[in-house]
């Protein structure tokens, strides 16, 4: 389902729509967040967040529990209403860019005892394109099967989803987002609680997406692997602590400020990472 790498702007004069997409992708930030404040009743969850995320990168959002990471994703998707501030995706509001964004929610957000198969779930990713009163066609099914193959779940197409392991379920969710052929993927803890095979599969997929010029923003739970898996990191604890390329931003100092300085394990992580850089910390 991953199409060829993004062609240069001049290549598609015959199709103005395609070149507009291309140009927008390369120039505009994937996501721009301005002065975003989100609260649940009277407790703030996100406070005054300003963020600019570059396109074509693998971006991790990290922070302690309750830091507002999932809420940030949901605010971008328009699933929660902010008190102040706005969000733009590739220079426009989310409503206008909806078809460019694929969402991979947390596995726990769904009851997996629902009577449906893996293929069915992936086909749901195409519902946005089908329009009212239409049923999925055989072409849609083919696309869904391809996406399942892409995540290594091809032989599980007709399996009832409650019979899948956690990692397999995660891959089904990924395949569903892939079916949308989006430019920007928002993922909520895609690596949480998955087996080693799934982790490798997801990682390979992310690399392919990046090679194809797509952008991935993922809430990530594991600090040990941030530097290894991602190019760009956002450190969040209700407020934005820091955001930028991993090399510059993933420092002991920033981590201490994000996690409140109570975690010595983090210090070791950051230090061991920094020590590996040429030129040292």
């Amino acid at each position, binding site marked *: 389902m991953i199409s060829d790498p993004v062609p240069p702007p001049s290549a598609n004069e015959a199709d103005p729509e395609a070149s507009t997409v291309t140009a927008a992708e390369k120039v505009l930030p994937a996501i721009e967040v301005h002065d975003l404040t989100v609260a649940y009743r009277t407790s703030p969850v996100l406070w005054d967040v300003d963020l600019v995320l570059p396109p074509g990168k693998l971006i991790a959002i990290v922070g302690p529990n309750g830091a507002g990471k999932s809420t940030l994703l949901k605010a971008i998707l328009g699933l929660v209403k902010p008190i102040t501030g706005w969000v733009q995706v590739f220079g426009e509001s989310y409503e206008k860019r909806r078809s460019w964004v694929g969402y991979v929610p947390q596995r726990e957000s769904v009851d997996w005892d629902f*009577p449906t198969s893996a293929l069915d779930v992936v086909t749901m990713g195409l*519902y946005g394109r089908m329009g009212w009163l239409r049923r999925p066609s055989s072409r849609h099914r083919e696309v869904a099967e391809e996406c399942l193959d892409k995540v290594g779940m091809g032989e599980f197409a007709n399996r009832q989803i409650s019979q899948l392991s956690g990692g397999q379920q995660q891959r089904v969710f990924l395949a569903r987002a892939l079916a949308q052929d989006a430019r920007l993927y928002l993922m909520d803890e895609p690596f949480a609680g998955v087996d080693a095979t799934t982790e490798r599969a997801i990682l390979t997929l992310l690399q392919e997406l990046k090679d194809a010029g797509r952008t991935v923003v993922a809430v990530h739970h594991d600090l040990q692997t941030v530097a290894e898996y991602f190019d760009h990191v956002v450190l969040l604890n209700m407020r934005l602590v820091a955001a930028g390329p991993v090399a510059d931003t993933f420092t002991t100092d920033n981590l201490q400020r994000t996690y409140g300085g109570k975690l010595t394990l983090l210090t070791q992580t950051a230090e061991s990472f920094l020590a590996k850089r040429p030129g040292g910390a």
Partner: protein
Amino acid sequence: MDALSFTARNVLLGATLLGVSGGVLGCFALLRRQSLLGDALAHAALPGVCLGFLLTGSKSPLPLFLGALVAGVAGSLFILAAVRWSRVKEDSAIGIVLSVFFGVGIVLLTWVQRSPGGNQSGLDQFLFGQAAALVTEDVILMAVLSALVLATVAAFYKEFKLLAFDPEYAASLGLPIRRIEILLTLLLVTVVVVGLQTVGVVLIVATLVTPAAAARQWTERLGAMVLISATIGAFAGASGALVSASAPRLPTGPVIVLVASAVLVASLLFAPERGLLWAALAERRVARRIRHENLLKDLYRAGESRGEPGAFIPVPELMGMRGQSAPRLAASARPLVDKGLAERRGDALRLTGDGLVTAAGVVRKHRLWEVYLTRRLELPSDHVHRDAEAMEHALDDVAVAELDRLLGHPAVDPHGQPIPRPEALAVEGARR
């Protein structure tokens, strides 16, 4: 059945229509965990019916049904508002709306009945239903509403499906989930209105929940679940109608509910995969296999300690190994003898050639697993026996071969006992 009176035919039609629309819609209510909401909306419909009568002075179906519709919608709006703007949680909101609206409804009902001419209103039929009072107008209205419900579900099937499975994702795709939810709630209220006269507000939740719950036991596909649920609903409706037609003292509504419940209980017990009976039988089968394999293993090990794997072992000794009673052991031994895996001589048993191979297979799994636990998981050797006792029955041949390869084809287990090679034993067995 050509002796069906006109009324009985109406009841049959009405009950079947209700069964189908309730069965179809109930699937979505069930999967969205909104069965209780259906109950609340049904109870909330009562004051609407009374007001419909009071305002128009007539008992014709349309004003009463409209009143029920308006009250049902009002009830669902109240629930939404309570959850949105107060600290009340959804289940409390549902309970509150249910009781308050129903209470108001009972007050109105009593007042109507006490007013002049009110005694003839017969509005209390809406509490428990009075299918016998169904006239053709009623059935026509029920048919129209049912058709509307079914057509809407067919038209918005994929939206309802996605909404029930993953509403957040649906919203991210741009589906107007608020509006779709409202539509679903409206359909719920419509089914309530359809069932008012047949089953009454108190019991109508059963026509929504029961067929859907029963259908869930039989399939893992939503489409099939909807069809099965509709069929069960229709069956319950029709049989309820026919039964109460032939036994005049039986009220239709409750009988329909009882039939549906019987189908549900049967489904819970007998459905393949999910049914309780199925699970119990499967468990019995596994327990039996474990007992046989244990006996084979005991024979092997007792023979091994004598230096002769195929030796005759006295039954009392076998009983002592696991503390089994004589009848228990005899029951386990008989199938082994029948299958030619063991032979009996007096009060002793021994393994046949085939039995030796099978027993060695089980022992091999046990001992390989022990090696795995001690070597890979680094457990002390006196901690591994219990685990291996369980795993020896669970590992299949593919897993064992892989395990053997992974461990580098070990020759002995952590206690120094030899790990049987099945190929060698097959030869040995053939020689006997």
